[in-house]
């Protein structure tokens, strides 16, 4: 950031950090609750929010707040894993395409484009079902659809790096290609990677929820937000709004905080943008 940065410009970062910290604490609390949040108690179903149950109970008599916090852990962890794997895969493909032979580029980019040509959610859904519904399958489905996104963006940057002086210099002195890739190109891709990772984290959270929402992600009774929103749908119009609205707001808050954070990372790189 440049010198004109004032506290006024910095507050979004602080706010997003605070929100993210709250989510992490929520997730931590959730891990202590563990299985307890899944135990059904049919004697206290659909209670409205009260002092005892701050966000009420759901159709099976489980405390919505506990489930939202367990869900925070699940969403954050799995989205992080999906994005990390997707980024790693995308990076490898991009390096091979950008620095390797031209035929390699063609061979690798063809399947990338094919995957991009799919309706993303449908592909993730089909993969998740094929592997047997569950969170792991959902993560694999998401990773497969994320890899090409990273690969395409990073490949462009990698290609550009070839004409950069430091890469040309390294090539001239005869360094092996993999060393150039690791020592020079990867750091060059760093900022783009960071921005992409942050941007895809938010969408991974949403896709995960969407998969559970359509019923191919989390298995019941896992407290995943998308599955909870789906549960809430049937109660929403009969008056028990809290079952579906609470996890939705939690999801929204997390993605917004992450996006604000992403913006700031991006702004650091390019002060003019937002």
């Amino acid at each position: 950031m440049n010198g004109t940065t004032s506290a006024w410009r910095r507050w979004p970062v602080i706010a997003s950090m605070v929100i993210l910290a709250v989510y992490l604490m929520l997730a931590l609390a959730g891990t202590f609750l563990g299985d307890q949040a899944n135990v059904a108690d049919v004697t206290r179903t659909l209670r409205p929010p009260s002092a005892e149950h701050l966000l009420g109970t759901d159709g099976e008599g489980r405390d919505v707040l506990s489930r939202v916090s367990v869900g925070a852990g699940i969403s954050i962890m799995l989205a992080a894993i999906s994005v990390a794997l997707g980024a790693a895969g995308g990076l490898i493909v991009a390096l091979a395409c950008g620095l390797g032979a031209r035929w390699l580029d063609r061979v690798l980019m063809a399947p990338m484009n094919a995957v991009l040509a799919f309706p993303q959610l449908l592909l993730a859904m089909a993969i998740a079902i094929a592997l047997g519904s569950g969170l792991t399958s959902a993560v694999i489905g998401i990773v497969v659809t994320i890899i090409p996104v990273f690969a395409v963006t990073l490949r462009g940057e990698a290609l550009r790096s070839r004409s950069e002086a430091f890469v040309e210099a390294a090539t001239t002195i005869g360094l092996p290609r993999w060393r150039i890739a690791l020592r020079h190109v990867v750091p060059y891709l760093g900022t783009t990677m960071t921005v992409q990772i942050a941007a895809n984290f938010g969408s991974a959270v949403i896709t995960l929820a969407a998969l559970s929402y359509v019923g191919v992600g989390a298995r019941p009774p896992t407290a995943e937000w998308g599955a909870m929103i789906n549960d809430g749908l049937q109660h929403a119009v009969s008056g028990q709004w809290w079952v579906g609205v609470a996890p939705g707001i939690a999801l929204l808050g997390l993605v917004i905080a992450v996006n604000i954070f992403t913006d700031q990372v991006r702004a650091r790189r390019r002060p003019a943008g937002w």
Partner: protein
Amino acid sequence: MFRDIRQRLLASAVTIVLASFVSFVVLRALPGDPARLIAGPLAGPETLAATRSSLGLDRPFFAQYGQFLWNFVRGDWGYSFSVGDEVREALTSRLTATLELALYAFVLAVVGALVCASVASFRPGFRRGLVRLFALVGLGSPPFWVGLVLIVVFSSYLGWWPGPSGRLSPQLYPPEPVTGFYTVDFALHGDLIGVSDSAAHLVLPVVSLALLPWAFLTRLLTANMADTAGQPYILVVRSKGVPAWRTHVRHVLANSLLPTVSSCGLILATLITGSVLVETVFNWPGVGAMLTEGISAQDFALVQSFILLSAILYVVGNLVGDAVNRMIDARLRTPGAAR
């Protein structure tokens, strides 16, 4: 230049064939037994065997794939057992519903983004903050949840627009199909009640569907406009005495459109994906719900044909986006600029 075009077309063809192959493989990897589902729990072994052979499942894998491609090209898209109709019939009747939704959402997203980005990038202040906040919210909202909230607030509670009752109030008859778009067809027949009723049914699903692409485009365009606004030539234009707002629209906006135009293919893909979720919430009789059901039932013919179709759509969209880009931006026309 021609070599470039030829290469691009070849690459596009490869993409389409690969996408269809992937879908073919993945669908067959799904667990389950479609023959059992079709023939029902009471079916005996002969019926199961006959069902399998009528689906072509007893033939070698590549023979099945070749047959599928050949039939698709010939226009025979097979029979969808989960819908109980020809795939072509099922897709075309439902695709128009999805397209009507998606196109209105597309227009809303693009127009909304143009207006909001122009306002937001004009000068810093309250408006910019507001647009930025909304864009952030939009980017973070899962469409199925937005749909739910909109229904609860605007349909259930306020009663402004109809809730999830499909394309038309049940007491109205669908118009004679001309384009398949209810709003347009009603207008062509001069039925005003029909136009307003079908438009009213569009409002909430269109808004839920448009929110995400709108937020994406607004952010993209605003960033680009802010970039452009800092360029020296804009200063030159201003110094010639052109009013600020006019400069902003005629020069800053016009010069920032490129990335927006080229991302339109992507936006269309987002809309198709998003429609899968939104259609379920609004009971919209489009392809979305039919496809999720089709995947669940392992309805090979239906899902394969749709994926092949949407891959073609995506590729063509990309080609058109590129062509438009080239028309707008002379720099891209130099041969060899794109690898």
